């Protein structure tokens, strides 16, 4: 056998991120910082996009930080994820430096996809990010396939598919769930259930109430979990047990992670379809950062310190990106086909 495409990478933070047992206060503070980094990154790209600095279009995950941070905390470095059009948080949480993401969104060679992908196509294979998908549901069958490769080779790895409630209405979702359960593939299906698909509320796109979405797993006899996506610790704990279940050969797990989208669907979305007060109230009562900060009893002074550091990191990423190199126009043709042949593995 040739080695797999992704060789396990040692975690940046230098310790196994799936270490079991309750999270230490110290680790929780690190994760708070990561969530804040995501928040500030998203706010910054909103700002840069509105200023006209960023090409294409953007979807931010403000309000959903604990899902990305909590799920990835429970993964091993060589577990793989597939992300969505709302990709920044997952990518940061899986270990890609913000510099590389910010550079990607500026279309620079230093970007995590070399400037070829953009906001909706963030890749970082070395970090186990198989790529974000701009086609809703598009990544799910591929995660099932990655998990099949792990299973065939007997590797203790899982594939994690992030997707939204809207994605559960696609044929790709159904076929992927069915195949994964049929073959007992080590997959975590992480539903980031924010109750909206663009402008369409759950009531207009789902025959089930948001809290009933675990039923989507019943059609396959798949293990399902209900998770509070605003509670970081709950997400970590749930993901750890889901991962244990999947990696031990018992089959995939469907996680109905309840969360909230604090912003418009895309940056610039006027949100004519929902009441401003809904968002205000969510931000007041459901902010995963505020909830974790309270749990940690973090002082204003400490918060300011962390925030300043995070802000600086984000600012630095903008400078890094702006100082980045533009690809040559002809580079467009560089990766259309891989050269040569796969050598025979006999």
């Amino acid at each position: 056998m040739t080695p797999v495409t992704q060789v396990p990478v040692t975690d940046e933070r230098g310790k196994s991120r799936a270490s079991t047992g309750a999270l230490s206060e110290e680790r929780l503070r690190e994760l708070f910082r990561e969530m804040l980094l995501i928040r500030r990154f998203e706010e910054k790209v909103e700002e840069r996009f509105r200023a006209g600095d960023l090409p294409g279009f953007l979807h931010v995950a403000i309000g959903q930080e604990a899902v990305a941070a909590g799920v990835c905390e429970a993964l091993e470095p060589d577990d793989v994820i597939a992300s969505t059009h709302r990709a920044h948080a997952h990518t940061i949480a899986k270990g890609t430096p913000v510099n590389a993401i910010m550079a990607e969104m500026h279309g620079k060679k230093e970007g995590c996809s070399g400037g070829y992908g953009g906001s909706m196509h963030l890749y970082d294979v070395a970090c186990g990010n198989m790529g974000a998908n701009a086609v809703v549901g598009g990544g799910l069958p591929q995660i099932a396939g990655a998990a099949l490769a792990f299973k065939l080779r007997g590797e203790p790895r899982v594939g994690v598919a992030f997707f939204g409630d809207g994605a559960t209405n696609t044929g790709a979702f159904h076929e992927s769930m069915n195949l994964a359960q049929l073959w007992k593939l080590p997959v975590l299906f992480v539903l980031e259930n924010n109750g909206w698909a663009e402008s369409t509320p759950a009531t207009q796109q789902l025959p089930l109430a948001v809290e009933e979405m675990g039923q989507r797993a019943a059609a396959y006899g798949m293990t399902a979990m209900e998770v509070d996506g605003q509670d970081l610790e709950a997400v970590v704990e749930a993901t750890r047990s889901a991962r244990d279940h999947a990696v031990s050969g018992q089959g995939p797990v469907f996680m109905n992670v309840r969360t909230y989208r604090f912003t418009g669907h895309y940056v610039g979305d006027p949100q004519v379809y929902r009441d401003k007060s809904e968002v205000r109230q969510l931000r007041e009562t459901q902010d995963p950062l505020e909830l974790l900060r309270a749990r940690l009893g973090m002082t204003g002074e400490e918060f300011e310190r962390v925030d300043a550091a995070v802000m600086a990191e984000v600012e630095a990423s903008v400078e890094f990106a702006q100082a980045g190199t533009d690809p040559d126009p002809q580079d467009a043709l560089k990766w259309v086909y891989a050269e040569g042949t796969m050598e025979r593995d006999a």
Partner: protein
Amino acid sequence: MPETTYREAVRDALSQAMRGDDRIFLMGEDIAEMGGSMGVTSGMVAEFGPERIRNTPISEIAIVGAGIGAAIQGMLPVVEIMYEDFLTISMEQIVNQAAKHRTMSGGQVKVPLTIRTQGGAGWSPGAQHAQQLESWFVHVPGLKVVFASTPEDVRGLLWSSIYDPNPVIFFEHRTLYPIKGNVPDELVPIPLGKARVHREGTDVTVIATGRLVHESLKAAEDAEKEGISVEVVDPRTLSPLDEATLVGSVRKTTRCVTAHEAVVQGGFGAELAAVVQHGAFDYLDAPIERVGAEFAPLPFAPVMEDFCVPHAADVLDAIHRTLARA
């Protein structure tokens, strides 16, 4: 309505058709309150209500399939696929079902379904929101394929598509929504299958679709400054194709350039070249030149995207190549 945008023209065709014809309704993602991702249907839910302006789940198979079933049962549905890249999900229903029911049933069934979609590059959408796939559908018997490039055309052609008794794939181009143009006060249906000569000329014919119609008109102006007389023709309906007008034009000018935003290989320009070389063989003074995108998934970075997609300058270069031959 003298000066109208392409976007308003689409909306006007839909609204005028829906008024007083209960068979017509719209289905698609986020087309109600949000007015669709391009704002084309904004305000329509207020006039026609949620039963006729139907938000759907993200289910491109069911959106098209339900449109087919409703059409067979006597409705005139207009369904929207938000980006034409997502037509890839609906291909089975479009190609095996909508296009074939009439023949497979020995003429018992009609499928008067209109599938509106849009796409195109020029704004860094990345590789999955920028394809131009019209040529696939030209290869499918039983479908009609329309690609409109001006406000007047999009309004008149959409009306004819809605009332056509066959399934019509109706392409709009993302970057054309804001363009303005004069349209007649009265909505005049434009028959499917008729090309439009945008500009008469004597030296070379440019056959262009979608955004490239406008790029070709720019190129024609630049060429004129050099004393080159360019005829610009837009087939508007890609299938059935108005071969007579296209071949006739090339027989007159003796040179031909095809221009679309889709990648050249396997693109609609290939069909045009095959038809024109056959119909105008004895008249052609130069090989037919094809203008289109580079053969690559569209990269995100603006510099690379700009390199990939064709512009007026590329059309002008092609015009020059055809004239470089004696």
